[in-house]
């Protein structure tokens, strides 16, 4: 395609959007509404994901070694754990260390454990295990429990399972909702543009008669769709940037938990803005080009 023809397509695309300005506003409204919802979902989902990820990475499995185990048996457990491919790190923690950890984690109250000397230490030797895929925690823990001389496997079962379940549900429901929203918007736009095409039907028919290729006819609609998509994403992006900035500035004053941290404003907001612009452009172009399809079959 020649540059001049490309210019012509852009001119036609802009002219058509201007000529049917009410339809253009209606289409932009549809894109704007959709993108505001999509942006809200994205921010929510990505942050939940972020929180869940950071919690997930904190999940460890503590493997307690039976008191009756000999030194060889204890080392065998360690080797067995090392040999499992899903396990990322294995750290040995002796019963003395465990006692120290317990004492220090309780602060001043930990002194009550001072009464135990090495002989009376009620704790077991332990291996602290981290997985490459924390989602596999439950089955791996069950597998570890079958190793001989392992007395107990701890990983905060219920909490971990609930967290993973919630995270997966949120991810899936969010994705389904976003996809449904995007298709609704495409449908709305293609219907709105179809009304304007009806008036241009004769023009398209004549273009076909004088030998226009399908892409020659489609291009102005492509441009028009792109324009609708970009204009439709202006308000959602502005709302996203200001909204997230406000949230980011104020979250600390209400946040009671250290482990809940939001994704940092930059580059997160710019990445989501880019994605919103892209989704807007795709919705607009797809809706617009789809609506000409029927009229090209001459």
């Amino acid at each position: 395609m020649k540059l001049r023809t490309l210019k012509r397509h852009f001119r036609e695309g802009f002219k058509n959007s201007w000529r049917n300005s009410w339809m253009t506003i209606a289409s932009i409204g549809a894109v704007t509404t959709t993108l505001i919802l999509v942006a809200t979902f994205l921010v929510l989902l990505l942050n939940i994901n972020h929180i869940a990820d950071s919690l997930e990475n904190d999940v460890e499995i503590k493997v307690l070694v039976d008191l009756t185990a000999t030194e060889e048996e204890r080392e065998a457990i360690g080797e067995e754990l090392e040999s499992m491919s899903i396990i990322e790190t294995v750290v040995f923690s002796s019963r003395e260390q465990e006692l120290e950890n317990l004492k220090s984690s309780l602060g001043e109250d930990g002194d009550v454990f001072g009464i135990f000397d090495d002989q009376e230490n009620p704790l077991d030797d332990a291996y602290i295990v981290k997985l490459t895929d924390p989602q596999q925690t439950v089955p791996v823990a069950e597998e570890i429990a079958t190793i001989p001389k392992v007395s107990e496997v701890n990983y905060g079962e219920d909490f971990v399972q609930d967290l993973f379940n919630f995270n997966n549900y949120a991810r899936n429901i969010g994705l389904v909702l976003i996809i449904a929203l995007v298709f609704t918007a495409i449908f709305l736009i293609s219907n709105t543009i179809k009304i304007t095409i009806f008036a241009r039907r004769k023009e398209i028919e004549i273009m076909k008669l004088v030998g226009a290729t399908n892409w020659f006819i489609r291009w102005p609609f492509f441009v028009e769709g792109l324009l609708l998509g970009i204009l439709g994403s202006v308000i959602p992006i502005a709302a996203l940037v200001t909204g997230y900035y406000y949230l980011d500035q104020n979250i600390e004053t209400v946040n009671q938990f250290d482990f809940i941290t939001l994704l940092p404003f930059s580059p997160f907001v710019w990445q989501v803005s880019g994605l919103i612009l892209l989704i807007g452009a795709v919705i607009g172009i797809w809706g617009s080009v789809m609506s000409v399809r029927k009229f090209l079959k001459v």
Partner: protein
Amino acid sequence: MIKMQNVKKTYPNGVQALNGIDLQIDPGEFVYLVGQSGAGKSTFTKLIFREETATSGEIYVSGKDLTKMKRRDVPYLRREIGVVYQDFKLLPKMTIYENVAFALEVVEETPRNMRKRVMEVLDQVGLKNKARFIPDELSGGEQQRVAIARAIANYPKLLIADEPTGNLDPDTSWEIMKILEEINASGTTIIMATHSKEIVNTIKRRVIAIEDGLIVRDQHRGDYGYEA
């Protein structure tokens, strides 16, 4: 120019429009297509223009096999064929100039050549001084002349006219015929479907009569042959 062998066309609704057409039209010919409404004239012209595809048989237009032609090659076939319709098919919001330039824009002609060619063809149909008008400001005959100018702008080898004088009074019809004859004299093949007994019987050319989807008569310098 055009060659058809045993061409049949049945529409999806079961109507048999053509039942086995054999014919050859040579470059530079002027052919009248006559026959009652519904006899298959329009289907015949649509097949040449590839608005419809044949159910069976072979069609060649300027050396191209239309039965094997891909969809994306159709626009290039149409650039070699000009079409004129009974209802002109002009765009009402565009000026006469723009209406004609439309056909050249589509083939990505340079602006300089476009201006030159548009004025050339408007001059040829005698409407050079009305380039800035819109179609509604012109008479029916003038509008048809604009449609002819648009059809020949791309230097087509073949011009299909589907009842070009159907909406016009006799005097205006003769003007249109004069222009078509000039175009034919310059070497363009013309196929004209018509119901006008006077035209066919006065300007004697090859006549192909179609009835019930078959060619019933093919005569050089023939008559209209039907009671008008």
